[in-house]
């Protein structure tokens, strides 16, 4: 009897253990988002508020029970703007279950990670590298390509030139960081300038971290620039224009900047120098952003006073809105159990026309487009505030003018 009981108990224990082993503890349904970010490095001033916007948006979704019961896990990695660190971090997290999207904070990181994203059949979002629109892949842009937004600035310059009653064509100088981001604008931007009859001077490039920009600015001024486009992520363009102001150039030359141009960060420090600066942006800036209750309500709920509000926060929310819209479609198509990054990749291509509460224009992702949106708005610094001077307008297709190898 004792022996029989022993055998019976062993069998029961064995079956119980195998059942536990097969099922494991009841786990929550979860998907992941990896941000290869910069929280303590050179562009932390913009990335931190952007990821705050995203994280708060995700918190809001998760506290309401997620999407069909699926919550979102935010994984933020501080790459300090370093490509090697980002690639290593991607290696560490690439096998995270249901890692549906990777956000690479810089053009350099995006280019490096893109190859791995293709091999792993995952999906990635990056700032504005037009190459990913020229060669359709699993990498999507946050908004219009850099060169398209630059072309929109050139359109504004031509209009402004004519409005001022000037004859002939304006001469435009371009200076930016000496890295993939800085050069990207001209891969199609140069061709567009030629197409509309603007004389673009030979570009000036400088290393990120340059303290003074007098040499580059003086060279452009001496070459006859009527307009100077200051690239770099804020506060770099703020500092470039500050130097232009000190040299007295802002009196005769109109300064412009791209969508990483002066934000609350730069205007708060150098309002006088930035007065009159024109910024081409795909997301709401300055007063527009401060008047968007959808954005400011969330900021106040999670971050408190509006004193330290930066408009890039709204752009982070926009990433979240896109992810959630994609997740809904992917879950509908594949169901949670079979959900893979490839489903998210397919879902993103179906987000054409997705509205984002006015933060940026309608989503332009499709099977043939990797542009986060096609429209930009032109802003200007007036009396220390960033105010819109145009409505949303479609950015020209400058990517299509360039021959990408």
């Amino acid at each position, binding site marked *: 009897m004792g022996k029989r009981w022993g055998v019976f108990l062993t069998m029961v224990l064995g079956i119980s253990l195998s059942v536990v082993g097969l099922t494991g503890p009841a786990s929550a349904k979860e998907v992941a988002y990896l941000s290869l970010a910069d*929280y*303590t*490095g*050179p*562009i*932390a*001033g913009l990335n931190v508020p952007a990821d705050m916007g995203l994280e708060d948006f995700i918190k809001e979704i998760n506290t309401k029970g997620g999407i069909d019961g699926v919550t979102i896990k935010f994984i933020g990695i*501080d*790459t*300090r*703007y*370093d*490509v*090697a*660190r*980002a*690639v*290593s*971090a991607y*290696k*560490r997290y690439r096998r995270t279950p249901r890692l549906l999207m990777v956000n690479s904070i810089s053009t350099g990181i995006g280019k*490096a990670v893109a*190859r*791995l994203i293709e*091999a792993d059949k995952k999906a990635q979002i990056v700032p504005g590298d037009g190459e990913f629109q020229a060669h359709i892949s699993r990498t999507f842009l946050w908004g219009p390509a850099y060169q398209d937004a630059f072309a929109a600035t050139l359109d504004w310059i031509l209009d402004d030139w004519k409005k001022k009653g000037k004859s002939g064509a304006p001469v435009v100088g371009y200076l930016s960081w000496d890295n993939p981001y800085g050069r990207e604008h001209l891969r199609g931007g140069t061709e567009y300038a030629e197409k509309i009859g603007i004389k673009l001077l030979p570009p000036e490039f400088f290393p*990120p*971290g340059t*303290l003074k920009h007098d040499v580059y600015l003086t060279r452009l001024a001496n070459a006859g620039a009527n307009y100077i486009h200051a690239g770099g992520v804020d*506060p*770099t363009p703020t*500092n470039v224009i500050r130097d232009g102001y000190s040299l007295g150039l802002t009196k005769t030359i109109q300064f412009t900047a791209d969508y990483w141009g002066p934000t609350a*960060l730069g205007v708060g*420090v150098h309002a006088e120098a930035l007065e009159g600066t024109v910024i081409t942006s795909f997301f709401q800036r300055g007063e527009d952003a401060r008047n968007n209750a959808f954005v400011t309500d969330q900021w106040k709920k999670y971050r408190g006073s509006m004193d330290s509000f930066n408009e890039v926060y709204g752009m982070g929310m926009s990433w979240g809105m896109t992810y959630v819209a994609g997740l809904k479609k992917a879950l509908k198509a594949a169901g949670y159990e079979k959900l893979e990054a490839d489903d998210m990749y397919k879902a993103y291509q179906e987000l054409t026309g997705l509205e984002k509460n006015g933060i940026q224009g309608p989503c332009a992702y499709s099977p043939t487009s990797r542009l986060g949106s096609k429209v930009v708005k032109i802003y200007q610094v007036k009396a220390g505030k960033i105010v819109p001077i145009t409505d949303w307008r479609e950015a020209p297709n400058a990517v299509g003018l360039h021959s990408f190898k």
Partner: protein
Amino acid sequence: MKALKIITLTLILPGLVLGALLWTGSASAADATLDVVPAETFLSPALIKQPVSFKGSGFAPNEMITIEMILPEGVTVKGVNKGEDVGIAMATADDKGSFSTAMQPTATLNWFFQVGWTPLLTPDLKAAKPIPPGDYKIRATGLDSDRAASSTLKIVPPPPKKE
């Protein structure tokens, strides 16, 4: 006789197959090599212009390679979570699976010197907290093949200043 057949089929044959698999696995891992140049250094601004570099072989042709520093127990690095390795360089193998690369200035500043960054985007050397002297394991991993090779970088204290 029948018992012998059963033992052969259930124990010996699977054992041989498993052993062969393990043997070939370790052989391919042993093929990958990594050299750190120099293998010993002290931290000084000269590393920005003459950075620590890496040479390797035995990886899959044309694959991306990440070079990581494994932090010894008790050493922390700004921006890196506990348990994470620090990517300090990257490379692409040539068609023979060999590579040569070096740390970029940003990597040296961020991971060796642990500098801060000013609002002007310049490295803040006053806020720097150089990693302590010691033996740091360096690992190169092929991102397609998962082949890995390791070596050591010895960071020594700087020589005493001449009076």
